[in-house]
């Protein structure tokens, strides 16, 4: 039961933040991916960096349970799937999480995105055996690995570098990139804030 309460609280907080940073707004997504307004990209980079520093810092201080980490496997299909997701993300202006939140905030097109998504997920469920047989779901480079070796995580490291320390360094790197990234790369003038 307590896990359901946590799901409600963290889920609602996540949905509310996605709404407030503009991630559920296809105008912000379109401008970010067209490189005409990178405000949302800066938000995302800062978030990854902040999350990383807090998590690995907490682990080093013994305040965060290392066992809560969940690392996904690396395989060729991750890259192909990423290519597909990127194309659809640009086309629709939504990814799975922001799509459901946008639909909840009243955007009609997001409901069509969800309907298409349910069909796409079903199509994968049906074609999964073919992907499995193709070998493209087989682990590469060690499968479930982190870039460094995180003490006590149970996951192998791609390198022997101390994983939690590397996590803090990379996290700091994401934060620095968030600060130095220009607001606009393509086009001219002040980056314009998209309509609400």
């Amino acid at each position, binding site marked *: 039961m307590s896990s359901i309460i946590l799901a409600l609280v963290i889920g609602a907080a996540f949905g509310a933040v996605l709404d407030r940073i503009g991630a559920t707004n*296809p*105008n912000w997504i379109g401008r970010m991916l067209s490189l005409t307004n990178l405000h949302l990209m800066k938000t995302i980079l800062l978030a*990854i960096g902040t999350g990383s520093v807090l998590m690995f810092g907490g682990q080093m201080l013994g305040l965060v349970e290392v066992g809560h980490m969940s690392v996904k496997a690396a395989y060729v299909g991750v890259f192909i799937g990423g290519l597909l997701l990127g194309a659809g993300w640009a086309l629709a202006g939504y*990814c799975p999480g922001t799509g459901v939140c946008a639909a909840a905030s009243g955007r009609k097109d997001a409901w069509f995105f969800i309907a298409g998504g349910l069909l796409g*997920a079903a199509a994968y469920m049906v074609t999964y055996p073919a992907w499995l047989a193709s070998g493209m779901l087989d682990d590469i480079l060690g499968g479930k690995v982190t870039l460094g070796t995180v003490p006590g995580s149970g996951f192998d490291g791609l390198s022997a570098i101390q994983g939690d320390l590397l996590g803090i360094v990379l996290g700091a790197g994401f934060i620095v990139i*968030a600060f130095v990234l220009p607001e606009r790369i393509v086009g001219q003038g002040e980056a314009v804030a998209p309509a609400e």
Partner: protein
Amino acid sequence: MTLNWKTGGLLLGVVFFLAVLLVKPIGVSTQFVILDGIIGNAANSELVTQTEEGWTSSNAYLAKSGGKYANSVANPLNYSFVFVIAMMIGAFLSALARGGVSRDERKLPAIWYANYGDTPWKRYAVAFVGGFIVLYGARLAGGCTSGHMMSGMMQTSLSGYIFALGAFATAIPVSMMLYRKEG
């Protein structure tokens, strides 16, 4: 009304951190499969079945990893599924509290209007096709923007970096081709 990136990024990062601290990293796209399973099982109760060891399915994907997904389909009141429902509630309340999304925007995003005019049905068709490709790709990759890119890169997982590389390699050129006008 949109938060400054410094405030927004900090808040988003804290949410991702709290999820790992208290439960596990955030992920969303699996729940599309779970909802498909729930719908499929309602139409055909043979889809997900109970065995002595737990739940399994006639669909190989739902049955994989010891019937992990089949179990979630049979028991939808689980953390990950409720999490996505809660995301919708949170986004709904947040949008309401800031006065709601304007009527024009709800019908058609400004960036679409700027590039393709008042063509809502064309937009809905594109959103539908986009949704199909996004979820097919996310399931092939084993995660989406939340699970792979955000949670993955935050944990320095190699797969997160591979995924992000693939996603931006297509997202940027496709977006630059389709949405030339900024809206």
